[in-house]
């Protein structure tokens, strides 16, 4: 008994130590003075918030969606429209972005959840592409040309800053809040019921669990945080169009982040994003330029090879790979 208490304490100390070092590195990155690195990790946080919200439905409930970009795109548009046409501060706009994505997710749930398995995946993709087509043809919101914010002086009220540093901390903060809220949800009744449904929907029903209710909850919460992420995207890039904010590749990248990190864990999608996105960003900037001119798309080839290598070396996902090598397993994974 005393033995276990001691080892636990040792384990705890190690976890606290590792976490502190990681936290310090993350907070210190912008001070390294390299806007390129700061920018790539800011993007990683943005993807992490998307992957985390996406995994509530995928990892916990087993419904693989390729329609997450619709919620992100709606979020990006709502903040943009409110800033551009109604002079509303993005602090409020981002809240409305979340709300709009929530409503869209709630409306989409009923028809989408009539299908299961790969058909569900196809249905979500078709749904999101339909939303994109609507925006491509919607003249009032710029149609295919998109919307551009005029240049404004730096201000906290308009969330306008020159470098990526402040966005870095803003998006990191929003990711942390999202992670805390989602962690509470998955450890509670909702997360548990989602897992029961993932394992066996008939067993869930025989226990009195209404599968559609919990699937819809997962979809709506996922939509909420994806919409908020979309709002932050608008404040940083100040330009939205259907092809950049509603491209289905976005959903594929979110899924890649989740799979590389590990779907069956809470922190997996965050870690996956922190690995995949900076690598992708770096490869694109190095090989996408002069070399890309002669061999078009060579950066994608290299990126694909790196992904292959990661999957070969870490078939259990980045998180599973780390857990095997560090004695911290059972702490961040939900399989404890």
């Amino acid at each position, binding site marked *: 008994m005393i033995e276990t208490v001691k080892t636990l304490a040792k384990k705890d100390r190690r976890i606290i130590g590792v976490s502190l070092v990681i936290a310090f590195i993350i907070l210190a990155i912008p001070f390294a003075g390299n806007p390129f690195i700061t920018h790539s990790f800011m993007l990683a946080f943005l993807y992490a918030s998307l992957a985390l919200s996406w995994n509530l439905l995928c990892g916990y409930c087993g419904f693989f969606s390729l329609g997450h970009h619709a919620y992100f795109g709606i979020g990006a548009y709502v903040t943009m429209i409110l800033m551009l046409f109604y002079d509303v501060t993005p602090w409020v706009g981002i809240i409305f972005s979340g709300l709009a994505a929530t409503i869209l997710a709630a409306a989409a749930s009923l028809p989408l959840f009539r299908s299961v398995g790969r058909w569900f995946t196809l249905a979500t993709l078709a749904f999101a592409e339909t939303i994109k087509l609507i925006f491509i043809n919607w003249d009032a919101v710029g149609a295919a040309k998109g919307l551009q914010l005029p240049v404004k002086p730096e201000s906290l009220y308009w969330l306008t800053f020159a470098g990526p540093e402040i966005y870095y901390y803003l998006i990191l903060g929003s990711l942390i809040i999202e992670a805390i809220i989602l962690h509470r949800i998955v450890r509670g*009744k909702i997360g548990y*019921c989602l*897992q029961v449904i993932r394992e*066996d929907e008939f067993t*869930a029903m*025989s*226990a*009195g669990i209404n599968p559609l209710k919990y699937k819809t909850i997962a979809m709506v919460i996922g939509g909420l945080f994806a919409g908020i992420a979309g709002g932050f995207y608008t404040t940083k890039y100040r330009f939205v169009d259907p092809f950049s904010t509603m491209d289905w590749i976005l959903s594929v990248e979110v899924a890649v982040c989740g799979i590389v990190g590990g779907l069956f864990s809470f922190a997996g999608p965050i870690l996956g994003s922190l690995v995949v996105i900076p690598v992708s960003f770096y490869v694109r900037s190095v090989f996408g330029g002069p070399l890309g001119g002669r061999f078009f798309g060579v950066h994608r080839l290299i990126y694909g090879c790196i992904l292959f290598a990661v999957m070969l070396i870490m078939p259990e996902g980045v998180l599973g790979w780390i857990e095997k090598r560090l004695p911290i397993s059972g702490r961040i994974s939900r399989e404890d």
Partner: protein
Amino acid sequence: MSLLSINGLVKRFGGLVAVDGVSFNVGKGELVGLIGPNGAGKTTLFDLICQFLKTDKGTVIFKNKDITNKPPYLSAMMGIGRTFQIVRPLLNLTVLDNALAGAIVKAGGMEEARMKGLEALKLVGLNDKSSLKAGSLNIAEMKKLELARALASEPELLLLDEILAGLNPSEIDESLKLLNKIHESGVTIIIIEHVMRAIMKLSQRIIVLQEGRVIADGSPKEIANDKMVIKAYLGERYVL
């Protein structure tokens, strides 16, 4: 007033009539055995009572409410617990997480549900395996786990589908004791079983199905001497 009342239930699968106009009442506190040859429609009848299958004709009344063709989770919430003949464990979850599934909807939170799950595991004798993955259990333990999940929901009516199949004689005796205990605590039970020794000892009343129809309904003694039942199912004169 009967707890469960089934009136003229019909279920067709294409040209096959699996349940063909079945009617009976089950009063509160009864322990009813449901027997019959393979393919008689016993499990289909359970699926109709739990609303896992859509009824073609007839009604299922539970606690004076018509639950015919309502969603299955509603009948579960109203107090119908069931086990599956082909076990349906949540393989990647722990034994405790499997058991508490039954309790989660009515419980205030995870802690309360865990307590109820643990109680149910204790009752079926699986509490020492609560932290193992359900996938690591053997078939007899999985059947017990099915029962624990159903019990955790604190059902008023318990539908048990062949939970004794595959158990050895001493395990069967143990399970019979447990079922008697559950019954004495006030739970109404309908049990499908092929182990005649067990069902004759356990039941107060037995309903015999053949080709989707009720061919006999009476005490174990009456059933054992019924000519139609002997011809259709028991095969020879069954001696109690």
